């Protein structure tokens, strides 16, 4: 098994489409998925680097596993459903604390999925039929107010405060908040590839700082022997 250079973790409430996003990106198609059990993991070759992407389970039952999955993560993708405000609220309430174990310079991306189901979900020229389908599929989505991108931007700024990060030293909110559709594929590659490009310099930095693989024998300090004499 190839050893991953970095870890990226997808977090978010159940049914926001984490698995579908990852599936769309990795397999290039949309597939109705079942609720993820525990977590799954993909290895993506990006240029010469191996990036592991963890898909976590959104269900409350597996919430406790989140911290472990996030441990040492280089980037975290917080995912919500643009048709479901509560899923954005949950990110702050439930999921943000899981990221405590992530590495200190961890990148955050906020992704609003299911843009194809919104009334104005014609970012990619959504056809009437698509909307109809959306209505049929998700009655819940119809009733809810669509989450604005500004809300995600606001959350991003809160995260920076929570992580005590300086806004000037991290990518701007506008760069890190996305709206996607795993179903149509809209913006999906952009999310992952933007992040991959951002983690590459981190990999290089880690390699530079990382523990040296060689043993420095010049550092060896001989243990001082107490002088012992045979006969005084």
């Amino acid at each position, binding site marked *: 098994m190839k050893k991953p250079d970095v*870890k990226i973790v997808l977090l978010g409430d159940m049914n926001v489409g984490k698995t579908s996003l990852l599936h769309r990106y990795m397999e290039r198609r949309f597939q109705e998925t079942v609720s993820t*059990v*525990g*977590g*799954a*993991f993909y290895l993506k070759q990006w240029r010469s680097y191996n990036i592991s992407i*963890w898909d976590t389970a959104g*269900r409350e*039952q*597996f919430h*406790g*596993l989140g*911290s*472990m*999955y996030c*441990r*040492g993560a280089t980037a975290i993708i917080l995912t919500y459903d643009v048709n479901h405000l509560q899923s954005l609220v949950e990110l702050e309430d439930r999921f943000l604390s899981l990221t405590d*174990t992530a590495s200190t310079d961890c990148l955050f991306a906020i992704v609003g999925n299911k843009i194809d189901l919104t009334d104005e979900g014609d970012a990619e020229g959504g056809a009437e039929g698509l909307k109809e389908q959306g209505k049929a599929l998700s009655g819940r989505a119809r009733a809810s107010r669509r989450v604005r991108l500004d809300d995600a931007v606001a959350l991003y700024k809160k995260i920076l405060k929570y992580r005590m990060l300086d806004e000037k030293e991290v990518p701007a909110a506008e760069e890190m908040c996305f709206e996607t559709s795993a179903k149509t594929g809209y913006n999906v590659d952009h999310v992952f590839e933007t992040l991959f490009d951002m983690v590459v310099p981190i990999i290089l930095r880690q390699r530079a700082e990382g523990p040296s693989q060689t043993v420095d024998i010049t550092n060896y300090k001989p243990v001082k022997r107490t002088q012992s004499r045979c006969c005084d």
Partner: protein
Amino acid sequence: MMNIKAFRLVSAIERELLMGDKDHINIECIECCGKNLYVGTNDCFIYHFLLEEKMSPTGKVAFSATKQRHKYLAFKKPVNELKAASALNRLLVLCDNTIALVNMMNLEPIPSGARIKGAVTFALNENPVSVDPFCVEVCIISVKRRTIQMYLVYEDRVQIVKEVSTSEQPFAVAVDGHFLCLALTTQYIILNYNTGASQDLFPYCSEERQPIVKRIGRKEFLLAGPGGLGMFATVDGISQRAPVHWSENVIGAAICFPYVIALDDEFITVHSMLDQQRKQTLPFKEGHILQDFEGRVIVATSKGVYILVPLPLERQIQDLLASQRVEEALVLAKGARRNIPKEKFQVMYRRILQQAGFIQFAQLQFLEAKELFRSGQLDVRELISLYPFLLPTTSSFTRSHPPLHEYADLNQLTQGDQEKMTKCKRFLMSYLNEVRSTEVANGYKEDIDTALLKLYAEADHESLLDLLVTENFCLLTDSVAWLEKHKKYFALGLLYHYNGQDAAAVQLWVNIVNGEIHDSTRSDLYEYIVDFLTYCLDQELVWKYAEWVLQKSEEVGVQIFTKRPLEEQQKNNFNPDDIINCLKKYPKSIIKYLEHLVVDRKVQKEEYHTHLAILYLEKVLQQKPSANGNCAEVTETQAKLRSLLQKSDLYRVHCLIDKIQGTSLHMESAILHGKLEEHDKALHILVHELKDFSAARDYCLWSSQGRDAPYRRRLFHMLLSIYLEPGPSACDLALAAVDLLNLHAAEFDAARVLELVPDGWSVQLLAPFLTRALRESLHTRRMTQAALGLASSENLLYKHDKIKLKGSPVRLSDKKLCQMCESPFCEPAFVRYPNGGVVHTHCAASRHTNPSSSSPGSRT
């Protein structure tokens, strides 16, 4: 969920052997170390069996256990746990919260009575920190609340090394190096007992569900997680593998690479660590122990012990392939890499890739198939042999055994579906085309190229010709038969040619052109043949088809002689006389050929030049009467004739003059007279017969080309005198004379002209001539003056040199010796070189060159 058969459940110890008919006896724990199998019971007995593995005649593994002895521990408590420390020959027995040491062989307690008291459960460190091979590291969960203790256990003593307290009560422990993986009341943690640092893993309620903590390898543990997950965690607190999904009530877990095996009250489930999928489910009721011992997985109910025998990986992979589960098979094979010696693995893996390739191929998944064939380094002939008749009849190839696939041939594979068949053929074409130039083709180039030729011919593919005109290894007999069958005669010709049988090739093509056989590959086949013969080195072949080619087209056909490659011409393989002889019947051809000799190759041979001139002349004369019809061509030939007559000096002029006499070819006869230096005659013809004054002027120019100025002047004067001769058309001629003078003033001697011109001409009429003549004369005068000046100054320079040389006297005495012969001077005459050297006159004469000066000066 698709299953594979990864394990077989085999009974190890029959119930009778253990407890006979005593129903109250239950198995509490087991330990297996090499062939030694230990069983601890609820009535405080330890049983020792020797386990023998046997191969049944059907190739299945079976076990037989022979009871060695048993031992009653006299606590009246169940034996909770057994662990063998084979290096110490000790068995660690946990019973009644005490870990006792007994002899592994005879089960007697050790004489020293060393023991660890107050243990709830314990674990051995399989990655010990200590370097002493004769001690084992034991971690116990103490009966004291929230306490863990580390012990070193020697042959006959125990030693506590560390005690750590935990934040909550621990329930289960596993050890790796300094790291403890602990199941606490509400969560799992990693604890470094050396530094005390701890790392939370994830929450788990140990009181609700029995936790599982199992070390599965270096620094990695398997834990029972929420929702029946089997979670992987490393000592760093991270997960490197995705979890496996067990049932909620799992009781035990074991590892047998690449599988995770779990036990619940009804089933044994097998998951792959490679793709996290469940691979096998074995019904197993009332199981309560599942453990792996050095790779051997043992499962037990309270009454009987069973062994899960893994099926050989290769067998499992073959099963997967048989059910077309290519991806899983490949994952399993790749995962097995580290468990199989490298050489063996590579052979096995390659074969699996090839098999997988054929599975994909049969499903027409050509891209995937190609990649698998490539990475599996498939012998291409395996693939070719699927297609009927493609392998050469001479091929010694036999398919590998056991077969890589189940198909006899493509017909069976496609079940006669023509569309599929075509797709398969198209794939093979592209595949063979890709590999034929790679190392994959080494050794089978004949097979590949012949197969490719057959495919191309059958599919009427344009690449057939490319294949045949570039380097190829098509086998002749096979290919000939196939190309004939598919009526690819042109291609067949190419094949013959590639195999050095040019005669056969040309004959075939000629037959196509003659319509004897049909192949419309090339509409310009005749030109192709001409081209082919042009570059053909076989003279005999060229001669054989020369007549045929010329009969088809004189102009094109003659190219076989005129366009031959330069290097061949230089060797002069073809005798021009033979060719001319052959071309006699073909007037157009012979002209072209002579033109080629005279104009292109510039052969300087009188007969060719004369012959060509005569042919031109004949043609011109022949066409003259019907001049109206083919005007352009007449002038073209005539132009060629004139150009030849003008430029060549080799033809026999008299012969041509004889032929031209009495014809109206005045220009030509003027040229011929010019060649004989009969300029007067020539100019007369031009001026009087043709009345073409510009032609007359041009005549003067080209006739004097390469001659000196007086010669040219003579011609111009001659022309002028002709113009000025009295005659009937004197007026026209006078005008011509004026034009000539004015346009070519420089060609005349002005003084003589002025004598010649009639007195009646005005100065104005000849103004341009006079101006230029005057100008010329002035120019000449000035040039001469300049030259004179330069010459006299040069003369001065020489005089200066002379005076300088004369400046110093040369003394000649008895003592002075000649520099050359080194003898004294006997007479006053001597030679002095400009560098001062003095020699005898005869010495200077005998030696013309002096090393230091080339211009000897002499003085007497």
